[in-house]
């Protein structure tokens, strides 16, 4: 049997247990909603305006930078696994690959994209 069957079983059980706990609370707890109770919380005052206000674009930039690095780092895993057998040549190649990543990071830094403005 494939190992992934067990992972699937873990997923199923991992879903059942929290659903069971929340379901038990749903059965046992009282439910008497009223408009004031269901109001959006905001530090003792009524909430003003819409939740969907304009948001800082900086988060988006960090997500973009992350995406590049994340994808590239995944490429490094096969390299790391076989590193012991490949010898110095593969190490130098890997270092060049990482340096390209670092140049990307330096470029982002120089462009001021890592500043919180």
């Amino acid at each position, binding site marked *: 049997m494939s190992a992934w069957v067990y992972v699937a079983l*873990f*997923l199923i059980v991992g879903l059942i*247990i929290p659903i069971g706990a*929340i379901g038990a609370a749903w059965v046992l707890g009282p439910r008497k909603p009223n408009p004031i109770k269901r109001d959006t919380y905001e530090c003792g005052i009524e909430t003003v305006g819409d939740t969907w206000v304009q948001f800082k674009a900086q988060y988006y930039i960090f997500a973009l930078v992350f995406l590049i*690095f*994340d994808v590239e780092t995944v490429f490094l895993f096969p390299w790391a*696994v076989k590193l012991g057998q490949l010898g110095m040549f593969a190490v130098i190649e890997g*270092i060049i690959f990482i340096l390209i990543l670092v140049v990307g990071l330096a470029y982002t830094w120089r462009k001021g994209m890592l*500043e*919180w403005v």
Partner: protein
Amino acid sequence: MDFLKDPLKVAADWLLGIFAGWGMAELWADILIAFLGIFVLIALLMLLDILLVWIERKVVSRFQSRIGPNRLGPFGLIQPFADIIKLLIKEDTTPEGADRALYNLAPILSMMAVLILWAVMPLAPTILNVDLNVGVLYIIAAGAIGTLSIIMAGWSSNNKYSLIGAFREAAVMLSFEIPMLTMMLIPTIFAGSMGVAAITQAQDVWYFFLAPLAAVIFLVAAIAELGRSPFDMGEAESELVSGYNIEYSGMKFGMFYAGELLHAFTFGGFWAILFFGGYRFFGLEQVSAFLAIAILFFKAFIGYWIIMWIKYTLLRIRIDHMLAFNWKFLTPVAFTLLMTTAFMNALLADAPSWLYVGGMFLSNVLLAWAALETARYYSRREREKVEGTQKVAPT
């Protein structure tokens, strides 16, 4: 004797005999046994989770010169169970304008993301759980579900604080995933395998002695991934009150809370496995599977205790400082360390083991020293620049 060595197999054989007696096909009997085993493991984890609440409260109160829960049972041990009962019979309110499907799914996913991490946790030489050959990547993938659940919770609550908390938390988790991924590459290089069990079995010398800096960076990144103080931007209670889980009540909030505690303990476990030999301790793990589990849990608790210690000692860092710390310090250091380790690994491949370990250790220490000195130099320059432009009134 057999039961002590390999309790899982003995139990599985016994159950298989029973199920075969009922005339069940072998494949289905196997799946049913695996299901039961996983269910028992996760139920025990939930029990551990309840005790973690007690441990966390006791430890924080000692850090703050308090006594902590001490009324219910000896040392207040029954307190967390009373809390669970309270959470169960609380009213569960849903805020106005919440996206109901996502709102209800988020706490479930948050708990699940932690529980499925235990799929690749090797508990003992005979209990490896699932021995995936891509175990390290699996840890990262499961962590991504946790990030997703936080975004879902913050977005679906229809609350400004939730949304801000979720955005911050996601930015932090994404950013610190880069050094964490990079540091997971280092045990992979040493062991020549991505499997978590293989990494444990390859640690004749604890990888902490080969890469102390990697262990430290991994712990820092893990704390940020967990969203714990000093990196708990997402639930900064002094500004966002509770952050992404602000609109949750009752058991749904309990799931977030319990998930966070178990997540911290799980990462203490992975820290132990990647850098401190997991269940291995001078051959003691071969005596009995139970002893191996006890060793792993002892190491995991030490990691968890360090995480708690940092949490209750340090102040919260501002979000811009935190992201700058990651992108301008931790990530460059992590990449430099990765290159150094790969290079030294190839250079010292044929060296005797004392030279190999010593060379690795020294290169790590030197790199840590150089990184700290560079950071100190630039932060002093920055500070002088700021102090030069704005005159501070003498006090």
